[in-house]
């Protein structure tokens, strides 16, 4: 009897001692899967994430403050450095805001060149996503394939602007230098090979059993959640919402082109999961190719720079301009007091918005799935922190 009693005592004691608690784990700031310097504070219950809090600001340079002390033209290089993987798109948004305020008419050739470089940049950016996402999920070779193709685009940009990553190419009133026929010809041959390659890559990664297991049904984003958080771009379209600024509120000459808006259909799992967001980006590249081909057909001869005053003075007032960047909608809220420098320039970053979703998406998923989620919303920390 006595022994038995002792035994039960011991049991209750060990049970008390084995009381479980949540473990706090820091993912980042130096972590390959966070694509930069993002720190996610995770509270885990064994392998399950119970709570995730993103901590931002490791790359904060307060660009908005810098811009207040710079002339309008000098701000453009700062825009490059926000989203350094899609610098052309970042420039275009800012330049568009000033042009709308000044009422500058852009020459047709400049419009075509702008559209072309922006779409090429979109392809380069999505290829980067494709490569890094595969690395996040354990496949290394797709990264090398993606970089081979991205290299061509960077070469072309280097010929155009002299720089490989941060171009300062789109200027107020047009573009810096004209594109020549040889470059156009090379772009058109490149597009043929790219189309073939993309199909190959997609079947290599997207149809892979392991990849599907890792991404399908993970981190489902419903349209309601997307609206609630103000998600845009591939994240919104991945949730099945047909919304693309190039189609719905066209800027530049996007209304001239014929292309489709890709939405997630839940082919491998449910609508709005990681696989859908991956697929939206891959198929978007084909749409970009379509647009560039139409550009190559329609491009006109002529100047690439409109007449712009030597010192830009934007009239008093304010404007909010949105453009469709590879990672989502980018907004510039420009407030001018009529002087040589912006009075206030607020950058609405889509990555910032998408990062805020992590806290809502993460609870209940495995730590490995969190890696897949961060990869699938494709953030660039330069844009998050600005």
């Amino acid at each position: 009897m006595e022994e038995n009693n002792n035994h039960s005592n011991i049991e209750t004691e060990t049970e008390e001692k084995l009381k479980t608690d949540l473990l706090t784990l820091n993912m980042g700031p130096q972590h390959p899967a966070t694509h930069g310097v993002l720190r996610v504070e995770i509270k885990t219950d064994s392998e399950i994430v119970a709570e995730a809090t993103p901590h931002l600001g490791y790359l904060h340079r307060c660009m908005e403050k810098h811009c207040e002390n710079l002339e309008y033209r000098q701000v453009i290089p700062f825009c490059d450095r926000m989203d350094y993987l899609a610098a052309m798109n970042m420039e275009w948004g800012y330049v568009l805001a000033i042009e709308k305020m000044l009422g500058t008419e852009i020459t047709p050739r400049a419009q075509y060149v702008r559209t072309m470089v922006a779409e090429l940049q979109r392809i380069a950016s999505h290829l980067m996503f494709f490569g890094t996402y595969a690395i996040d999920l354990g496949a290394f070779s797709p990264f090398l394939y993606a970089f081979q193709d991205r290299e061509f685009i960077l070469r072309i940009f280097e010929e155009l602007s002299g720089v490989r990553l941060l171009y300062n190419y789109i200027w107020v009133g047009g573009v810096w230098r004209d594109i020549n026929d040889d470059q156009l010809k090379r772009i058109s041959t490149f597009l043929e090979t790219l189309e073939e390659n993309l199909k190959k890559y997609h079947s290599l990664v997207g149809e892979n059993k392991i990849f599907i297991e890792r991404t399908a049904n993970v981190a489902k984003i419903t349209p309601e959640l997307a609206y609630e958080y103000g998600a845009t771009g591939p994240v919104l379209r991945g949730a099945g919402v047909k919304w693309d600024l190039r189609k719905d509120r066209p800027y530049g000459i996007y209304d001239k082109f014929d292309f489709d808006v890709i939405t997630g259909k839940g082919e491998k799992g449910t609508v709005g999961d990681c696989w859908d967001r991956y697929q939206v980006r891959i198929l978007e590249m084909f749409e970009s190719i379509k647009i560039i081909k139409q550009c190559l057909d329609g491009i006109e001869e002529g100047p690439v720079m409109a007449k712009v005053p030597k010192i830009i003075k934007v009239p008093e007032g304010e404007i909010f301009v949105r453009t469709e960047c590879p990672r989502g909608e980018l907004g510039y809220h420009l407030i001018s007091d009529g002087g040589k420098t912006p009075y206030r320039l607020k950058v609405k970053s889509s990555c910032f918005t998408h990062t805020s979703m992590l806290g809502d998406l993460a609870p209940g998923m495995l730590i490995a799935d969190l890696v897949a989620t961060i990869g699938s919303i494709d953030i660039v920390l330069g844009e998050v922190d600005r």
Partner: protein
Amino acid sequence: MHNDIVKFLNESVSGCEATLRDDLAGDPVIFVNKENIYDVCKNLKEGKFEFNVLQVITGTDYEDRYEVSYILASYSKNSELILKTKLNKDKDENKETEPVLDTVTSLWKAANFQERECYDMLGVTFTNHPDPRRILCPDDWKGFPLRKDYVVEEVYNGMTVNPAEKINSADHNYFQEMKEKYGDKKVMHSWKK
């Protein structure tokens, strides 16, 4: 469209005093009273204009006031709106009152990060915010960078901010030299001091 919104707001939210400013360049702006900001946002979201997405909350520092802008968008109606509210600075007793606004986090979850950024950069406090911390600057940072009278701390946690040996002053000195040599007009301007 903006006239309709002003009319709608004045009818549905009493005392919000919505006014339209469209005489300046760019987009028209609607101003409302700061006390009614929550009700105004609620009506815009749930009313007939269906502004279901909050894009930006941000502020601007003027000499006598702060202006906080709420940029809303509607995907169903394909429209967008800049909504602004003025927070006057009272400098009566030699002490500035800090700007305070109601939070709209219960309407849009996006407001959480946006309001935190607005607080971090401009020091606008949002009452009843669920997580009122700084977001981009460290928690122990002093001052609000986007205020026009902001001065960077010289020492932060024992570290010198912008130490002289780490600043590349070569360009600056070069242009300074050129300016002295040739006068202001011929030389591209250097950054402001």
